[in-house]
């Protein structure tokens, strides 16, 4: 099972060469719900249409998945599939995915290389963010370089707009489901704190 998934993901990686990228972007027209009959390559194409061909999103509000821990992606996809995490886009996408599909998708994205978007630093915001992550010890769980581990996501190099959205969702308690850890941790942070955290973390070099 493991080996089969690995080779399928490998097939996709070969497909995802520069030549194939043009082919894929041309064929992925609409992100339809991946029916259980589709192959894993077809499912990954659907993912890529929003999350980027190399797992680095170029669309506002859509997270990058490249280099996310495998367990994190698996857990979140299962939360979506089970209806425990609600999202207009992702809940229907995850509906009907098998555990094997989810394993293959998680393995695929965990092996892609995250790319930090090069943007100008807003110095005050950046320093505020740095002070907050140190004070709150985000690195204890997300690791000192914020690359994430196990069920805890990579934050380094994630899209700034997405980090703001996800932290606001925790603050509003519209995200949490079976895991309310982040709701408790972020409780009481101001809008400026959230923006500062997102700015700082998004500019960390994705390793």
């Amino acid at each position: 099972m493991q080996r089969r998934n690995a080779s399928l993901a490998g097939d996709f990686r070969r497909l995802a060469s520069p030549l194939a990228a043009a082919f894929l972007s041309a064929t992925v027209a609409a992100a339809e719900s991946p029916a259980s009959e589709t192959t894993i390559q077809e499912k990954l194409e659907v993912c890529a249409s929003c999350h980027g061909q190399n797992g680095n999103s170029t669309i506002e509000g859509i997270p990058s998945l490249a280099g996310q821990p495998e367990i994190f992606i698996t857990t979140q996809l299962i939360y979506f599939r089970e209806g425990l995490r609600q999202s207009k886009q992702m809940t229907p996408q995850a509906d009907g995915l098998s555990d094997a599909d989810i394993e293959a998708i998680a393995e695929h994205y965990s092996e892609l290389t995250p790319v930090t978007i090069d943007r100008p630093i807003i110095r005050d915001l950046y320093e505020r963010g740095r002070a907050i992550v140190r004070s709150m010890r985000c690195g204890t769980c997300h690791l000192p370089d914020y690359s994430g581990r196990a069920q805890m996501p990579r934050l380094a190099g994630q899209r700034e707009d997405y980090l703001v959205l996800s932290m606001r969702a925790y603050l509003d308690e519209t995200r949490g489901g079976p895991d309310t850890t982040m709701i408790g941790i972020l409780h009481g942070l101001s809008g400026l704190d959230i923006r500062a955290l997102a700015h700082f973390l998004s500019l960390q070099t994705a390793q």
Partner: protein
Amino acid sequence: MEDRTTKLFRTGFAALAAALFVTTWTDGAFAQKKNVPGWAQGRPAELENSPLAPHPSNLKVTPADKIPVDKILVPPGFKVELWAHGMPGARMMTRGDKGTIFVGTRSIGRVYAITDKGGERTHQIITKGHVQPNGVTFKNGSLYVAAINKVLRFDGIEDALSNVPNPVDMTDAFKLPPETHHGWKFLSFGPDNKLYIPVGAPCNNCDIDKNVHGNIRRYNSDGSGMEIVARGVRNSVGFDFHPETGELWFTDNDRDWMSENGPHCELNRVSTIGADFGFPYCHANGIIDPDLGKPGACENVQMPAALLGAHTAPLGMRFYTGNMFPPEYKNAIFIARRGSWNRTIKVGFDVVVATLNSDGQSAAPSPFMSGFLDTVNNSFWGRPVDVMQMPDGSLLVSDEQNGAIYRVSYQG
């Protein structure tokens, strides 16, 4: 040994902490927020960079051929077989009058029903999308499910497995607190026909209102008549009633981050309704909490019937009343220990059996079912969470890590 382990634990992390703290605390001009995850609350400053954290749940199906049943050890004459599998997150079990086994979960939010068709088991999801529907119990044809503060009742469920009816939502009647941390429930009806429900403390170690958190309650089955049966209980996720005396016995998980070797988790007996078991001021067999306890904190606290090891996470427990196992197991208590996270050298991940002493007030635990923990590599492959006796006297054991249920039988 104990001293050396503790010393290694402290000095190892102190060195690591020293290396990291220097840079960490230099610029504190901005917010100094101290919110931490519930499991990390109470962690001493010198361990703030400890890598110890709860193990992630496995939410995926584990195929039968990936479950190494042959690694499980039981005493001579006993046999273990894989009885059901393919149910990620399988935890607490209850049996319907017609033989259906219902299984609760935490993270994956499902409740399963297993039907035994003459040697072959099939399972289905009867309800999903709940927040930690861990508590399940069966009474008068109805399945009761508790998911944090939600209480649901599925009437006539065993006759409606192909078309599961909407449950009766009794949440408002039970008025359980909404906190999720240590808010997952165990459910059981007592010999008094009351529904017993634990409410954990929403923290590792903190001051609580003992009338709200850190207790075990009983209710009439409709949610009325709430009464607190035991107080000062940090987090109980398993209990049963003595087959002869009817007394409530329960497991309790003691606090983290105090040391690797203590305080011990507990097996307790409720001798007086409303008795205080000490949390958060007095732990285990009379250890005063270093942060919250004052001299005399253990006075008037009921001491455990048995100590079950530090960080071992004893959860589901049942008295054995069957005739299949040898006579020495009669009225002994089987206890599933899910295993530690807050300890460098892992411990637990097994089922122990506690034999009651002749006074009926204390008990002596012994190993019963192990092999889930690889002590050489300090790794585990299975996590026993609940035990349940079957009508033939065999014992079912749920394994959350593999979504599996094992059957232990005695063949002599």
